[in-house]
């Protein structure tokens, strides 16, 4: 049952990449001359979603298994073998097992989803993902009635991932969602960008996308999905519980202890890129605020 949610903008509104690149060069040139942009402070969030370029999306990544520099994943993620690939789905499901990537893709309906992507580091992008709803995958495995949470795990291959030689985080990278968050129609497993296969640095061959949460929740290169009845551990929460909560919903009113979350900078605006206000639930409040009714989001951050 795909297509539970559609963009308010349709595919036809996605600017062709070439046109976009040209337009950006013009903007960069104008900004360089001081014609636009500048340090004018926060500007109104532009509602028309303009996707970032392929170049931006695939060159500026956090994927610490390949290094902590933003350019490291694009430099080193080629070493990751993504064929063959399978995802182990286990825990409280009717049909546990190793599901081959091709087998999954044969059963899933891939859609385009143009989403805002907000990193906890206060930068953001707009990405035209291709992917399928996580709910469809979970339904394929048969979620049992006792399941309350979904745990995810990233592949861990020290031979192919040079970054895991350093204890930046406790490897493998793990993440988790409440079952209702996982089943939400906005939550997808992305397998492509701009209609092409998702590159390794962005989490090939399939990665989670939860657009109303900070980017680190959207775990990459998933090899295991476990349905559980207890809140699963999550990597950044384990590393620093004071700074990173289980929920990590985008929230301009709850600051990261070390920096403000009130504003963000859209990647791709050059040296004079302005800050824009961050939206509650990254602008998806109409769709997801109901999931957190009655919760104190300053406590459950």
């Amino acid at each position: 049952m795909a297509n539970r949610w559609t963009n308010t903008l349709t595919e036809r509104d996605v600017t062709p990449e070439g046109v976009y690149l040209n337009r950006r060069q013009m903007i960069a040139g104008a900004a360089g001359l001081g014609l636009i942009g500048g340090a004018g402070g926060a500007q109104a969030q532009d509602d028309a979603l303009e996707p970032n370029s392929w170049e931006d999306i695939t060159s500026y990544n956090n994927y610490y298994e390949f290094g902590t520099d933003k350019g490291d994943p694009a430099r080193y993620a080629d070493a990751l073998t993504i064929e063959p690939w399978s995802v182990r789905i286990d825990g409280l499901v009717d049909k546990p097992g190793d599901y081959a990537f091709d087998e999954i893709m044969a059963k899933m309906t891939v859609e385009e989803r143009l989403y805002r992507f907000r990193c906890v580091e206060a930068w953001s992008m707009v990405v035209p993902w291709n992917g399928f709803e996580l709910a469809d995958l979970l339904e394929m495995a048969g979620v049992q009635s006792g399941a309350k949470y979904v745990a995810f795990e990233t592949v861990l291959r020290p031979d192919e991932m040079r970054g895991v030689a350093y204890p930046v985080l406790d490897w493998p990278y793990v993440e988790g969602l409440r079952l209702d968050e996982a089943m939400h129609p906005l939550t997808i497993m992305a397998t492509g960008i701009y209609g092409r296969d998702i590159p390794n640095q962005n989490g090939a061959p399939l990665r989670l996308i939860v657009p109303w949460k900070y980017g680190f929740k959207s775990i990459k290169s998933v090899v295991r999905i476990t349905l559980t009845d207890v809140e699963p551990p999550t990597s950044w929460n384990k590393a620093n519980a004071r700074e990173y909560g289980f929920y990590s919903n985008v929230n301009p009113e709850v600051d990261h202890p070390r920096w403000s979350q009130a504003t963000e900078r859209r990647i791709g605006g050059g040296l004079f890129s302005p800050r824009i206000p961050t939206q509650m639930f990254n602008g998806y409040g109409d769709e997801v605020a109901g999931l957190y009714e009655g919760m104190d989001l300053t406590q459950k951050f």
Partner: protein
Amino acid sequence: MLVDRINALARRVPVWSVWLVLLAPAVWTFWLGLTGGLGAEPIKALERELGEVALQLLVLGLCITPLRRFLGLNLIRFRRAIGLLAFTYVGLHLLVWLVLDVQIPAQIWADIVKRPYVTVGFTAFLLMIPLALTSNDWSLRRLGPRWRQLHKLTYGVAVLGAVHFIWLSKGFQIEPLIYLAMILGLLALRWRASRRVQRA
């Protein structure tokens, strides 16, 4: 001997050429940022590069005394220039943070007060101001022995700079820790040397 040759060469190198060479990275990085050479997010890249060069210059400045004491290498005539260059880089780093990165004046002050890593970095900058103001011949003559006392503030500045770098990093990262280790090592060399002098 090699050391003597280097010393002879160093005597002939004008101090202004050190300025020219060591300011080049700032100009070059800014140019790259303007022309798209710093990647998708040039603001953070520029900010980080300026901060890191500042830290490297502080380390270089702390190397001058041990180089002379242990190897007989005399580069002392470049030390004030190196210190002033470090101050310049910290100033540019701060300026990029203020104008290009944070942008919003109310938030700048809030960050300085509320965010410990910003407080630490800003404190280091403030401590460098008296050092920069007195890095001239007139002040050196005027302050006499107090000049050396005052300029020991550099030790604190370097440590604060490294702590600032460690504190702003996400997760457990090696690079900022290496800077702190180098700085503490260079300070330890001084401490041992001064104890030896006291005992003698």
